[in-house]
């Protein structure tokens, strides 16, 4: 069918395998490992992320403590592994929320009467004019600090971008031949949306989400770093970095490894996202 109608359903079809996809494969494997750490951290690092050991404070990395220990003797490797859940969870959760909310909003705007669409489109334009991180900060100011606020703030800040793509795509779809034939065949409007529009939105939005995941992880960790997210003993990557900031002169490893974890996640998400987007 997709050969006949351009732009027809090919939502979840992955790009064909080519030798050039090796970086994407590596990225996928690393992300899978990180997800494993997020879901079952104790499999990889059995110790407790908050257990202190007064005799083992600020030890450099060695065979017992791969990433060293922080000032109160907590194992940095354990904390980074256990932090994956919070950090990746925030990134994935916020991206998922933004995708669903933005997708629905965009689809509605694209199908709504012109006046409603115009208002929504302008609202999205205004929000896109503000830096995403600043919007997230403004939302934190309203919601107050906390992990839940970070999730909502990062998600809402990203909604306009998804809504914009979904709106344009919906308008294209609504004019396309196969949606029109559904109309001619007498399919009900809601069924037309569910059956033809939303599934076809999924492809472009998922590609966008793979790229947006990196931004979401960085924003969430950034808010954590600023002290607006998780509260300190919790091992969230941004919080770990801000703890490490005060020890830079004496113990570089406390800040370097959590930051490396963030960077690796984001690089992998971008590589995968670009591959899905068909750019390489």
């Amino acid at each position, binding site marked *: 069918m997709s050969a006949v109608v351009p732009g027809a359903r090919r939502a979840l079809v992955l790009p064909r395998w080519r030798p050039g996809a090796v970086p994407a494969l590596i990225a996928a494997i690393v992300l899978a490992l990180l997800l494993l750490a997020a879901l079952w951290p104790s499999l990889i690092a059995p110790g407790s992320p908050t257990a202190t050991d007064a005799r083992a404070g600020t030890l450099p990395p060695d065979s017992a403590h791969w990433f060293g220990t922080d000032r109160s003797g907590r194992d940095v490797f354990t904390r980074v592994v256990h932090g994956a859940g919070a950090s990746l969870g925030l990134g994935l959760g916020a991206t998922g929320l933004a995708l669903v909310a933005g997708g629905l909003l965009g689809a509605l705007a694209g199908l709504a009467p012109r006046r409603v669409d115009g208002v929504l489109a*302008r*609202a999205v*334009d*205004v*929000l896109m*004019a*503000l*830096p*995403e*991180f*600043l919007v997230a*900060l*403004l939302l*934190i*100011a*309203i919601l*107050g*600090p906390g992990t839940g606020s970070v999730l909502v703030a990062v998600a809402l800040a990203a909604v306009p971008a998804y809504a914009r793509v979904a709106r344009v795509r919906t308008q294209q779809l609504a004019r396309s031949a196969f949606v029109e034939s559904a109309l001619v065949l007498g399919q009900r409007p809601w069924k037309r949306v569910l059956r033809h529009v939303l599934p076809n939105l999924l492809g472009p939005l998922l590609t966008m989400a793979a790229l947006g995941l*990196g931004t979401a992880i*960085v924003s969430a*960790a*950034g808010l954590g*770093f*600023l*002290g*607006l997210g998780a509260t300190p003993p919790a091992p969230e990557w*941004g919080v770990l*970095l801000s703890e*490490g*900031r005060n020890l*830079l*002169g004496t113990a*570089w490893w406390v*800040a*370097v490894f959590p*930051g*490396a974890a*963030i*960077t690796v996640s*984001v*690089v992998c998400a*971008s*590589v995968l996202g670009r591959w899905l987007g068909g750019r390489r």
Partner: protein
Amino acid sequence: MLVVLWGAATLAFLALQLVPGDPVDTILGVDAQVGEQTRDRVREELGLGLPAWLRYLQYLGGLLVGDLGTSYQARQPVAEVIGSAVAPTLQLAAAALGLAVLLALIGTVLSRGALRGVVSAVELVAASTPTFWSGLLLITVFSFGLGWFPVIATRDASSLVLPALTLAIPVAAILGQVLREGLDAAAAEPFALTVRARGAGPLRLLGHTLRHAGVGTLALAGYLLGSLLGGAVLVETVFGRAGLGRMVLTAILNRDLPVVMALVVLSGLVFAVLSQVADLGARALDPRLRDGTSG
């Protein structure tokens, strides 16, 4: 352009309405031992007793004459509070932008040769590295390790180097990617073949294609502004610098909403002005955009 400004102002006002809690608590402090009378007086001073639509009109009217409101915390006009913090951030952003353009151009020139794959890999990592980590890395290596630059911010220009570099790295990466794609697209066009057929070397050709790539890069101006402003909050915290970023963070933690709102409106203003300037710049670079008939 005006729509963006009005939208940003409305958004900011809505945000203020949505904040839970009594602003009077923020102004006097939650534990302040004051009678109901004092609280009422403060409320009246701020016009908080008026209906929301009237305050909205007052707020918009104030914006028109440049009145951004009064900071809850500092009890000073917001314009003054912001004015005192704007210089260091502007310095930082300008230095970072300059560095980023320089780095992007270097990357572009290097990627002409065999280093193409390396450059694009470096760009990918640079674009993915959070500034609050790269900043800490730079401090570790250059301040604590080599001792080249001061650890904490001083008035000295040398303390600007690391923050500006930190802020420049992701911006340079994005700029470089877009510039390179634009150059490649321009080099594939027929006019590039004509230029080469006239016997122009790679450098002459670059002179021609750069103009084409510049148009696409200008479209990034808004995005770059966002990275610089949003990044400033984090970079200023990493390096302990004073500036707008630190101010907005303090304002958020203290629930000093008028300051936060003013910054939202201002960044909307800067974005609107910048888009206009970028538009004009694109017209100057690309004659096809001038007479309305896009080619």
